C-alpha cells in the first residue's frame, strides 16, 4: 500500500543497522522504550493526542450504543426519529442559513436528508471507523506476521510459494480486490474489514520477512538454535519481538489507510449499509444534496481527515522516535 511505502522504504535497510551491537539491540526494543521515545517526540505526542481523542469518542459512542441504547445521544442531540412530527431535513450548521431553514442549536452541525442530527451521526461514525481500522490492521498484521515469519525463517520452496501468492494478491489494485472479494462473500462491513485486512497482509509480510531474513543469521538466534530451542519459539520469542519498532510504525499508518479504504468502500455502497452512520456512507448520501445543502458533505469528510491525520502523525512520530538515524 503506497501510503505506507514512504516508511516501509525507510524500514527495509535498518534491519542491518539496529544489529550494530548487542547492547543497543537490547535497549531499542520493547514497549517501555517505545513509550519513553514517544513522550520525548513532539510529533508523536500530537499524534497520540488526536488518536487518543478519537478513541475516546469511539469508546463513548460504543458505550452509549451498547449499554445505554442511545440515551446520551438522544438526550443531548435530539433525534428526529423519535419525534417524526418535527422532522427538519437538511438544516445548515448553527448560525448559517439555507433554503431549508436556519441552523438551530439542537443540531450544531445541521441535519441530514432524513432530519437526523449530523453531529451525533459523525460521532457515531467514529466508532465504526476506529473499529474497522484497528480490526482490519490486526488481520493484516496477524496474517502478514505469520506468513512473513514462516517464509523468511524456513526459506526454500515454502518461501517461494508464499511470496508468489502474496505478490499476486498485491498485484491487484487493492480497492478492486476488496470489491471483488466483497461481491463474492458479502457486502457488509464485516467483509469490508476482512477484505481490507487481506490486502494489508502483503505489506506486513514483506516487512516481517525482510526482518526475519536479516535476524535469522544473528549470533543470538544461532545460539538459541544450537541450544535446542524449537523453531517456533525462536520465531515468536526472538525474531518477532526484534521487529517490533518498524511493525508498530507500519501498523499505525495502516490503521489510517484502512479507515480511508473502508470509507471509500462505504461510499461506493460496499460496507456499512444505511442506516448505519458510517462516514463513507454519510458522504455517499450527501451526494444528492450538494447544491442545496453543501455542509452535509463537509463534516464526515473532516472527521475522516482528522482521524487519518492523527494516525499518520503518530506513525511518522514513532518512526522518528524509534529510528535514531533520522534527525529531523
Amino acid at each position: 500500500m503506497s501510503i505506507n511505502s514512504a516508511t516501509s522504504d525507510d524500514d527495509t535497510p535498518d534491519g542491518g543497522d539496529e544489529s550494530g551491537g548487542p547492547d543497543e539491540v537490547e535497549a531499542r526494543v520493547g514497549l517501555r522504550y517505545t513509550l519513553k521515545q514517544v513522550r520525548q517526540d513532539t510529533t508523536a505526542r500530537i499524534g497520540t493526542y488526536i488518536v487518543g481523542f478519537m478513541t475516546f469518542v469511539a469508546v463513548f459512542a460504543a458505550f452509549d450504543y451498547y449499554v445505554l441504547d442511545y440515551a446520551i445521544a438522544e438526550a443531548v442531540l435530539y433525534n428526529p426519529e423519535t419525534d417524526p412530527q418535527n422532522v427538519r431535513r437538511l438544516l445548515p450548521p448553527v448560525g448559517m442559513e439555507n433554503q431549508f431553514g436556519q441552523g438551530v442549536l439542537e443540531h450544531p452541525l445541521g441535519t441530514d436528508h432524513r432530519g437526523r442530527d449530523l453531529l451525533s451521526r459523525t460521532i457515531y461514525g467514529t466508532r465504526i471507523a476506529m473499529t474497522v481500522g484497528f480490526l482490519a490492521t490486526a488481520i493484516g498484521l496477524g496474517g502478514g506476521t505469520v506468513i512473513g515469519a514462516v517464509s523468511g525463517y524456513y526459506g526454500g520452496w515454502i518461501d517461494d510459494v508464499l511470496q508468489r501468492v502474496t505478490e499476486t494478491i498485491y498485484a491487484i489494485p487493492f480497492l478492486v480486490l476488496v470489491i471483488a472479494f466483497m461481491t463474492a462473500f458479502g457486502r457488509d462491513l464485516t467483509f469490508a474489514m476482512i477484505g481490507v485486512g487481506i490486502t494489508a497482509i502483503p505489506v506486513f509480510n514483506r516487512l516481517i520477512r525482510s526482518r526475519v531474513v536479516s535476524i535469522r543469521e544473528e549470533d543470538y538466534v544461532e545460539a538459541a538454535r544450537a541450544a535446542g530451542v524449537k523453531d517456533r519459539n525462536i520465531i515468536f520469542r526472538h525474531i518477532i519481538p526484534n521487529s517490533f519498532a518498524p511493525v508498530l510504525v507500519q501498523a499505525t499508518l495502516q490503521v489510517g489507510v484502512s479507515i480511508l479504504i473502508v470509507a471509500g468502500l462505504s461510499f461506493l455502497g460496499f460496507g456499512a449499509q444505511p442506516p448505519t452512520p458510517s462516514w463513507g456512507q454519510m458522504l455517499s448520501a450527501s451526494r444528492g444534496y450538494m447544491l442545496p445543502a453543501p455542509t452535509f458533505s463537509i463534516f464526515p469528510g473532516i472527521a475522516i481527515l482528522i482521524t487519518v491525520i492523527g494516525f499518520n502523525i503518530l506513525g511518522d512520530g514513532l518512526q522518528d522516535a524509534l529510528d535514531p538515524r533520522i534527525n529531523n
Partner: protein
Amino acid sequence: MSLLRYTLRRFAQAIPVLIGIVTITFFLANQIPGDPVEIMLGPTPAQEQVEAIRARYGLDRPIHVRYFTYLSGVATGNLGFSIYYDRPVLEMIMLRLPVTLLLMLSAFAFAVATAIPLGVISAKRRNEPADHVSRVVSLIGVSTPSFWIGLVLIIVFAFYLGWFPARGLVLPWTDPADVRGAATQFEVLRQSAHHLFLPMIALGTLQMAQITRIERSSMVDSLQGEYVKLARAYGVPESTIVRKHAFQVAQLPVITIIGLGLSTALGGAVLTETVFEIQGMGRLIITAINNQDYELIMGTTLVFGIVYVVGVIVTDITYSYLDPRVTYGED
C-alpha cells in the same frame, strides 16, 4: 544484460502473476451468490429458456472446465461476453480503458508537476516556513479521501463558482460532431481539459502528497551526500548544486513511489469516476458487480491487474535505465 533483455525478462516474470490474478478473480467471481441468468430473464423464467442461456454461456459445465476454457480464452485475447451489455467484454473494456488511463495519466502529471518543486523547496529550506507549509500540505494530502476532495471541489468550483463542469468527461480525440458546442478539434480539446481539471486534482492529490514527502526526504539525503560536499568545496553555486548534482540522484526513490502509487490511484479512479460520473473502467466494474455480470467482473479486474503490473514494470525499467548502479538481471 542489455536493457532489452531485462525488459523482456520482467514481462516474462509477470506472466505467472497474471495467471494468478486470473485464477483469483475467476474463483471469486464464481463465489458470487445469485444467478446472472435470473437477472437477464427476470425472476420467473421458463425452464428451457434458462437452460438455453446456460448452455450458450457455458454456465452448465463444471467449474474446472470453465476455468481452463476461460484461461485459454484470456491467453488468446478473448475475455468472454458481457451479459449485461450484450457485447464482448474486451470491446467494453477497450471503450472504457482510455478514459481511465487519461484520468490516471493527468492525475500523475499533476502530482509530479506540483510535488517535485514542493519537495525540493522543502528540502532546500529545511525547517523554515516554506518547509512547514509543504509538509502540512502533504500530510493533509495523504490523509484526505480522494472522493471527498472530489465532492468539495464540485461544491466550490462547479456549484458556487461555476468554473468547471461537475460531471462527465470528453475524450480529447472525440470527433467534434459528437461533442455539444464544439465545432473544431481544438474546441473538443478545450472541453476535455475543462472536464478533466477537477477529477485530475481529486485523484492526483494523494499522489502529489506522497511524492512530495519522498522528494523531500530524498533531496535532504542527497544534499548531504559526499558529491554535494565536494561540489560545495569547489565553490559551485548552491543553485547549481541543487539543480544538477543533488536533484538527479534524488529522483530514483520518487520513481519507485510513483510505481507503488499506481495501485492506490487505480482504486482512486473507481472512486473519482463515481464522484464525477465519468464512464471509465471504475464505473464499468461497479456496473458489472451490480448486475452480476461474471465475465465482465473478471475481465475488468484482470485489466486493472494488468495495468498495475505493466505500470510497475515500466517504472522498474525507468529506474534501472536512470540509475547507472543497477546491473540488470542480478538478483
